[in-house]
Structures are given as structure tokens and as C-alpha cells.
């Protein structure tokens, strides 16, 4: 079982570094930003927000730190963790290294929902529309995949592609019909991924979803390992592979629907983080799942800080940063895999 332990020697130092980076990112999020708030005021605003005795800060400063920056950072960390973990699960259950959390058409379904809400004049309801759209896409994909009875791995992936294409076409039609520059501005921001400025309600939803769905998924890592053996082997061991896969797909899709409703369709995290995790800590899902989550959280936390601070005072959609950073990393990983494979 050498393949399973190839990252093991590095596990302790890697863990220490990652936890350090995560803590630093969580501190950086509320501390830096284009509003240029003094660090002491940041600390006072957070202490005050937590209900501790703290120095006086202006209501605006307090609102920026406590109601914009901190929930934005927490949302980014939770969404990043969700996407990283869900990507790892998707890659395991489909035995496909290119799978990501949006595999079942979720991002394009969510976009249709968000765009519909926006065009109906309810941009505040875009997250709700996105969640509903993601669920519709999920239902549609699973219906198509199971239409002929038992859904094979390939039929699920292909159904997902079909639903994605349909969603993209509907979105294009809606945008084309709308034609206004305002609509483009808002919808492109959504397509590229932007953390919604909805304060603690969004952050709370992300954290609670992660805490409810995360532990059971992490605890089922051995079941996920089973998919690597093939459905037939699993069934010979008494595990109903099709049913288990469906359960995982539904759980992961619900989580992803929450994520996409809070931040739009942020790409590359779900695809890339599991690969980086395998590189750093080895192949078993017992380690790949939590480390993918940790890496996703770190990555999106820093990307969110970058979106606010790289081109001040302008804001870059966070998804642009994750793609800019994620795509080259993915390319390097592929090159490395080819070299390893050639050895």
C-alpha cells in the first residue's frame, strides 16, 4: 500500500503550515481592506461585536469590520471548505479526476435562478433563486441519469453536461432578452463568483451547512475509498454502490447549492484542491477529504482578501482570482502527474 502513504511523511509539517495559513487568513480578512481602518479599531470592533468590553469605534467602522469584512471572511472560508470537500467527494464517487462540485449542472442551474430573480427586480433574492435553481438542476440531472433504470457513472456525468448546457443556454437567452448594461454587470459578477454582501445571515448559513453535512461526509471516507474498487467489488462486499453514490451526490449537491447561493459559481477550488491534497498528504479519502476542505478554505479566504485589496479601490470578482491562481496550479499538477507517470 505504498501509494496510499506517499504523502504521509510530510503530514505533520504540512498540517502545521496549513493551520498557520488558515489562522493568518482568518485574521487578515477583517484586518485589511481598502477602507484603511486602523488595526486597533478592527480589534475593538470585533471585541465589541462579540460582546466584550472594547474601545469606542464609529458605527460605520464597526459595521465595515463586523458586518462586512468578518462575515465575508467567514463565508469565504466556509464556502471554500465546502467546495474543496465536495470536489473530493465528486471525484471519488465518479472515479473521475476532472469532477468538480458543479458536475451535476448545479452552477448553471443556480445561475438561471439568480438571473431570473435579478430580472424580476429582486436582486436581494438572488441567493434564494440560485439555491432553487441548483436544486432544480440536480433533480433534472438525476431524473435524466436514472431514466433508464439504474444510473451508471457515465450516464450521471453526461446528464450533468446536458443540464449544464441547458442552463447556460437559458441564461444566455435571459441575458440577451434583458439587454441592459445593469443586468450584464450584475450577472457577470454572479457568473464569475462574488461573495454576497449579506452579512452574518449568509456566513451563518454557510457555517451551519458545513457543520451539519461535513462530519457525516468526513466519517464516510472508507465508503468513498470503496468506489475506487469499482461498483461490482463494492456490491460483492454487500455495499449497494448505486444507492450510496446517489446519497453522496445529493448531500454534496445540497452543500454546493448553499455555497453557490452565497458566492456565485466560484470555479477551480473543487477541481484543484483535492489534487493538491493528494499531492501533499497521500491518497486515502480519510485524509483527502479534510485536507481538501482546509485547502479550499485557505485558498478562498486569501482570494476574498485579494478581491478587495489588489486593485484599490476597485473590487475584482473573487472567482477571477481563484481561476487566475487555480488554472496555472492545475496545469502544473497535470505536468507533474505526467512526469510521475512516465517514470
Amino acid at each position, binding site marked *: 500500500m505504498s501509494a496510499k502513504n506517499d504523502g504521509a511523511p510530510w503530514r505533520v509539517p504540512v498540517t502545521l503550515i496549513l493551520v498557520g495559513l488558515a489562522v493568518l487568513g482568518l485574521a487578515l480578512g477583517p484586518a485589511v481592506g481598502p477602507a484603511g481602518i486602523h488595526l486597533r479599531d478592527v480589534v475593538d470592533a470585533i471585541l465589541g461585536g462579540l460582546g466584550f468590553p472594547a474601545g469606542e469605534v464609529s458605527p460605520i467602522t464597526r459595521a465595515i469590520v463586523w*458586518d*462586512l469584512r468578518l462575515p465575508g471572511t467567514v463565508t469565504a472560508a466556509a464556502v471554500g471548505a465546502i467546495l474543496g470537500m465536495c470536489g473530493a467527494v465528486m471525484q471519488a464517487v465518479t472515479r473521475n479526476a476532472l469532477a468538480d462540485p458543479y458536475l451535476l449542472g448545479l452552477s448553471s442551474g443556480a445561475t438561471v435562478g439568480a438571473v431570473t430573480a435579478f430580472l424580476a427586480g429582486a436582486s436581494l433574492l*438572488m441567493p434564494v433563486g440560485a439555491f432553487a435553481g441548483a436544486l432544480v438542476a440536480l433533480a433534472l440531472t438525476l431524473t435524466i441519469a436514472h431514466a433508464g433504470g439504474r444510473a451508471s457513472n457515465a450516464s450521471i456525468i453526461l446528464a450533468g453536461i446536458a443540464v449544464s448546457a441547458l442552463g447556460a443556454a437559458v441564461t444566455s437567452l435571459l441575458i440577451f432578452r434583458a439587454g441592459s448594461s445593469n443586468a450584464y454587470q*450584475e450577472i457577470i459578477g454572479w457568473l464569475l463568483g462574488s461573495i*454576497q*454582501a449579506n452579512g452574518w445571515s449568509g456566513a451563518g448559513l454557510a457555517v451551519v451547512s458545513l457543520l451539519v453535512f461535513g462530519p457525516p461526509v468526513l466519517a464516510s471516507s472508507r465508503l468513498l475509498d470503496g468506489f475506487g474498487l469499482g461498483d461490482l467489488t463494492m456490491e460483492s462486499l454487500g455495499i449497494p454502490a448505486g444507492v450510496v453514490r446517489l446519497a453522496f451526490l445529493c448531500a454534496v449537491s445540497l452543500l454546493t447549492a448553499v455555497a453557490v447561493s452565497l458566492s456565485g459559481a466560484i470555479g477551480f477550488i473543487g477541481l484543484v484542491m483535492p489534487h493538491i491534497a493528494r499531492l501533499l498528504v497521500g491518497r486515502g479519502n480519510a485524509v483527502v477529504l479534510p485536507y481538501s476542505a482546509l485547502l479550499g478554505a485557505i485558498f478562498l479566504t486569501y482570494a476574498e482578501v485579494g478581491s478587495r485589496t489588489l486593485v*484599490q479601490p*476597485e473590487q475584482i470578482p473573487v472567482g477571477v482570482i481563484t481561476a487566475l491562481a487555480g488554472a496555472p496550479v492545475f496545469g502544473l499538477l497535470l505536468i507533474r502527474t505526467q512526469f510521475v507517470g512516465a517514470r
Partner: protein
Amino acid sequence: MSLLSFRPLVVGLAVLLAAGCAPGGSPAPDASSPSGTGEVVIENCGMPVSFPASPQRIVAIKSTSVDMLFALGLADRIVATAFLDEEVPPEYREVLREVPNISDNAPTQEALLALKPDFIYAGWASNLSVGGPGERAHLDRLGIGTYVSPVACEDAGADSPVFNEEIVFSEVAELGRIFRIDASGLVASQREMLASVEPVVSGPRTLWYSSGTATPFVAGGTGAPAFMMRHLGLDNVVAEVAKPWVSVAWEVVASREPELIVLVDSVWNTKAHKAEVLAANPAMRQLPAVAESRYLSVSFAEGAGSITTIPALVRLAGELTG
């Protein structure tokens, strides 16, 4: 298909050349008097467009074009409107009663050609493209003159010139030449109006909010809104960005504590909805300007740098001092 089938075309071209109507064969346009019959050639958004005669059948795309045609007294030549940003004002209704609004978007070429226009007046460069009415060069070959408001030329991006009233006045003058009318009176009255606008002393910090929930899209330092804020004496909180419009972080907008917010009102995104977004934002709702609804409102066309921009300045100045 034989070569013969092209003969009528060749003959037609020869006749055109003989008549001196081919591009380059025209007399100097500046020599033609407003009422003259000479061909007028205009360079519009980097493209030469020629007008052999004063256009009679106009399709006006976007509200800014309709407003301009009314201001110039040419509204009776409008055969159709399209892609309007606001309800047609009551004073236009009598003239536009029989005029169809053919599309909520840029109209397709077929719908457009069916109206047999000889002039398309577009508020945005993107209104004239394949998939919509068609490319300008193509429309030109069909004998349809096109004109795009200079403020909205496609390349007017990040390094666009700082907006000022002369951009609108040059549009008025060019339209005067195209239609062979004397437009100097309109320019003179707008100059007078602009001169009458008194900036408020030490005006409030002002945010010009266009749209956006996750990220606000606001006026920067170079567009028509920046021009309007300067003339009103308002202190634009995002003045340092050298762009007409910019996406900034909410914390930037909030930390600059605007005391007054200008909301852009359009049919596809109303001011009431924008006020809701501001009231729902956890930082913005802390601002007294939001809590007390200290809002001014402009129409989309007024804020776009159009013939209604200066009249809107007069109105806003009245609201600020009144």
C-alpha cells in the same frame, strides 16, 4: 450563375460614380450651407459616414436619441423607437402616438429594414451590431445612415476623455449638419442653462449609485455623473478613479460616509429597488443618508451625458437649494 447576372449592379455602380456620389467623390462637407444639397460627411466614432440628403425616416434607439430628436424639433421624422430606458414622457406622447416601439432591446435587422428607415440614431455603439440592426458599414451600403452618440463610442473605455458639455454640443452640431438645420439655438440655450447652475457651497459627500448588490457599480471621476456632481458642487466620494463607472467594494463606499446618494432610475432597475438594496446592506444602512433616505434621483438618460443632462442639472440644483 453567370457574369451577366452582375450586369445591373455594375451599371448601377457606374451611374453612381458618374453622379459623383461614390465615397471620396463628394465636395468638401464644410462648404455646404445648412440648407444646401451637398453631401455631408461626418466622422462618427472613428468611422466616416455620409449623408447625401437630410434623413426623413429615423429609427431612434435608446431614450437619449429620442430626447435629442425632440430637442432638435425632428421628432416628427421618427418612424420607430427601440430599447427605451424610461416611460415616454407625457409631452412626447402626442407626437409618438402612432410611432411603434419595436423592441425592448436592440431591434433585429429585419424588423428595422421593414420600416425603410434612412437614418438610425443609436445611444450606444453596441446597438449597431450583427445580431441587432447590423454593422454600420453594412447599413451604409443599404443606404441607411447611422449615428452613435459620441459619448458612447465603443472605445470610450478606461481612457475615455473626461466628459464635458462640449461632447453633447458637438453631437448637436453634427446632427444639425446631417439634417441641414440650424442647431445653434439649442446649444446657446443649453449654455445659458449651464451658466445658471450655481454650485452649492461645500456640497455634501455624494455617492452616485448605478447598480449592484454583491458589488456596487458607481460613478467614477470622468463620466457625465462626475461632470454633474462638479457643477452642482457635490463632492464625489469615488472621484479619484479615472473611469466613468467602476465596481468598488462596499466597504470603500461605506467608509467614505456619503451624505447624499444619487440613484439612477430606469425601467429595468428602479430607484425604489436600489434604495432597498442600500437599506439591506449591513454597512450602508448605518449611514444617515440611507437611514433618512437622503436621495436624489436622475433618469438613465440624464446621467448618460445627453441633451437632458443640463436640464437635469438645473432641476437638481433647485432640489439641493430648495
